């Protein structure tokens, strides 16, 4: 830049003035930003005394830093342009000489040289350093001092809602975690190709309802309950009978030469392959000798006896009957019916898998236990799980506790520490937890007798009846039976054990499927 040329000189002064303006604006904006941040701090401080705000200082730190950065950023966003600087210089007594000179830069005018000469000479007389001061605005400075004192004063005010804010925050965090779990379960259900649309919709509706419940829950315990409740509902929908029957059927059919291929297809669990094999079976049955037919009927009969599912059983018996009749159409229809029953079983198996997966996803984590442990300092708990096939018990958390998992029909065991989380098994029955209330939870539960009598064998009672003419009988009751009632305990601490025993009894006894559901629902309702 040639300062000897008028435009060089004007540009030089403009640049210098512009730099000074930027510095001045920065100083002003930073002071204003500081004012705003302090005001925000005071408002937050005061608000935190009225409504619970978690980590108010951290929040204020973020807000303050944000405001400060914005104030700095605003300087760069609104950098003064050359013409604006020229206008400012003109307002210092140059009477639009600079702006007019700039506009004439690319134009011809008879006045141009005179104007430039005049502008440069006047520029020398203007002390822009004096006019553009690098001092913060006095009013803003006073405001900063006042707000700092006010902020200091608000810090000293008592904070009665501090603990409440912390609890609210933890609850919200917990809810978010649980919501993520539900969403994960939803995604998995949606991805599951083995489920029918109706099954998917049913599951998704349940998960959506759970999300709503989580949203409404007032504490982590309520959130956990909602999760547990759904997990149990899902568990109740798992029907293992058809799945086991399918396996049994495959094993039984494998023993028969005619049905070996079908047995293989059943093991593969591929619907298309199974359908194909049933079609082959129809052809084979047409050309079968009487002896082979009898042998096949025998296999069908044995298979039917080993099954629990009535539909499958009826289909097998129906096929046997059709073979007896020798009616080819009836045989074909029976084969189709059996195919349908097998497909239903397969569908149920897929549903079982999805339910188990969702159930697994929805296990409440140990945050609740951790909270309780922290609150009371001596939280205790125990969890028990029971499952079939591949049972798995889970429990984790801080504080003290123990969890157990118990498998029946397979081998599984789990142990851990935790409070109140029953083990949930993918293919089994989740244990119902005994929950010990923390010191902070003062809910009173109805007291029931200790379950020390549960499982007590005693000696086998011998009851002898003596018939007489009067129709009277005598009864002898053994003395060895455990008749002590034990101590009274809150039912929530023992309900898990009662439930566990009930589940064991159901496994060992032959009771109608409908009754099992009633019992499961009953114990689930006790948990609510």
């Amino acid at each position: 830049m040639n300062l000897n040329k008028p435009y060089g000189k004007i540009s030089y002064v403009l640049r210098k003035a512009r730099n000074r303006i930027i510095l001045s604006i920065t100083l002003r904006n930073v002071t204003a930003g500081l004012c705003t941040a302090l005001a925000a701090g005071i408002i937050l401080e005061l608000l935190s005394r009225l409504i619970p705000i978690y980590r108010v200082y951290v929040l204020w730190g973020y807000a303050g830093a944000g405001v400060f950065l914005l104030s700095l950023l605003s300087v760069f966003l609104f950098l003064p342009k050359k013409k604006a600087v020229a206008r400012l210089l003109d307002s210092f007594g140059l009477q639009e000489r600079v702006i007019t000179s700039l506009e004439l830069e690319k134009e011809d005018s008879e006045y141009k040289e005179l104007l430039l000469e005049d502008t440069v000479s006047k520029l020398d007389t203007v002390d822009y350093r004096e006019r553009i001061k690098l001092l913060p605005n006095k009013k803003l400075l006073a405001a900063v001092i006042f707000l700092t004192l006010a902020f200091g004063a608000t810090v000293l005010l008592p904070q009665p809602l501090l603990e409440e804010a912390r609890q609210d925050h933890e609850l919200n965090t917990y809810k978010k975690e649980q919501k993520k779990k539900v969403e994960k379960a939803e995604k998995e259900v949606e991805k599951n190709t083995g489920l029918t649309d109706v099954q998917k919709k049913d599951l998704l509706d349940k998960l959506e309802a759970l999300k709503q419940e989580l949203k409404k829950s007032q504490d982590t315990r309520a959130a956990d309950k909602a999760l547990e409740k759904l997990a149990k509902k899902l568990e109740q929908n798992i029907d293992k009978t058809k799945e086991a029957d399918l396996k049994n059927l495959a094993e039984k059919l494998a023993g028969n030469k005619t049905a070996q291929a079908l047995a293989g297809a059943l093991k593969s669990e591929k619907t298309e392959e199974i359908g194909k094999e049933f079609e082959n079976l129809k052809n084979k049955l047409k050309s079968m000798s009487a002896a082979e037919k009898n042998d096949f009927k025998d296999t069908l009969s044995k298979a039917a006896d080993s099954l629990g599912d009535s539909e499958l059983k009826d289909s097998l018996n129906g096929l046997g009957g059709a073979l007896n009749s020798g009616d080819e159409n009836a045989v074909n229809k029976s084969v189709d019916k059996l195919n349908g029953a097998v497909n239903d079983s397969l569908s149920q198996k897929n549903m079982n898998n999805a339910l188990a997966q969702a159930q697994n996803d929805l296990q409440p984590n140990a945050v609740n236990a951790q909270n309780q442990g922290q609150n009371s300092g001596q939280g205790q708990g125990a969890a028990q799980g029971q499952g079939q096939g591949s049972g798995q018990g889970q429990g984790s958390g801080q504080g003290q506790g123990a969890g157990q998992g118990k498998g029946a029909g397979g081998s599984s065991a789990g142990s851990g520490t935790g409070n109140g989380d029953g083990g949930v098994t993918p293919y089994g029955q989740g244990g119902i937890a005994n929950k010990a209330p923390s010191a902070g939870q003062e809910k009173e539960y109805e007291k029931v007798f200790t379950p020390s009598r549960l499982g007590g064998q005693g000696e086998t009672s011998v009851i002898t009846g003596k018939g007489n003419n009067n129709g009277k009988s005598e009864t002898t009751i053994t003395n060895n039976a455990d008749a002590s009632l034990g101590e009274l305990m809150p039912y929530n601490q023992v309900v898990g054990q009662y439930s566990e025993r009930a589940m064991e009894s159901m496994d060992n006894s032959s009771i109608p499927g409908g009754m099992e559901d009633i019992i499961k629902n009953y114990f689930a309702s006790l948990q609510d």
Partner: protein
Amino acid sequence: MEDKEILSIVDTIKAVENEVGKAIIGQKDVIRQVLIAVFTGGNVLLEGSPGLGKTQLVKTLSKVMDLSFSRIQFTPDLMPADVVGTNIIMKDEKGSSKFEFQKGPVFAHMVLADEINRATPKTQSALLEAMQEHTVTVGNSTYQLEEPFMVLATQNPLENEGTYPLPEAQLDRFLFKLMVPYPNLEELKGIIGVTVNNQTSVLQTIIDRSRILEIREILKKVPMSKLVEEYALRVVLATHADYEKAPELSRKYIRYGASPRAAQAIISTARVRAVMEGRYNVSFDDIKYVAPSALRHRFFMNFDAVADGITPEGIIEEILTGQLDTAKV
């Protein structure tokens, strides 16, 4: 055009101003604004009490600028022919009669239309063509007035009885309407000294008519920033009640806003004023200086303004302040 020529214009205008100031005591601002009108090429309406030196000012100007001068005293019985002239029957050398145009007093460089509002509208309008077109049409003939031509009309604000207010169309043709103030004590002493005590001063001719025309052309080219130009236009627009940025006073009290001639007047006179100030560019201050004189007769206020004692000057001041975007750090 050389820089020296421009510089000489500045000197010339200053010399004229000083020379006029010798004969007219006080009234510096009026002198300056009349000179602005002269170098812009517009007509001036002077309003003030009698005896404030209006006629003297025009006479002095014509003397200093070597221009012909004529004075027409407007009265209710003054006829248009008394102003523009008329065809009269004349006998030629052969003794035959023929019509010959006898020029009226309007055929001068500087015409003082004294108490213009005392004449009938018909006579007033006889000046319209001369003021705007610088021509006079009598019968079928149009006569060109010699340049520079300008009308300086006076109005007496004190006596309204028997007067005919100038129509809006005619008012718009005055570049400036100047309010001639009453002199202060010092100025009055000076006036007494010149008139009563006969302390006459000899006036010199500083400039002639051809030079005036040259200067007018040169002054038309004074550079004006777009910002300043926009400001001038906004000021004119703000005299319209329906302009979105018009101040409250305009919205409430103005019946009709200024015409585009107001914008032309402000911009052209601001250029002259800039040079008279020794600058080679037009500033916001120039606009502020000329705007009251260029606007006060160009917008018309409603009855509310009269009732509330609102003056055009008050509204113009409000407009000038409100339309200026001041530069800030």
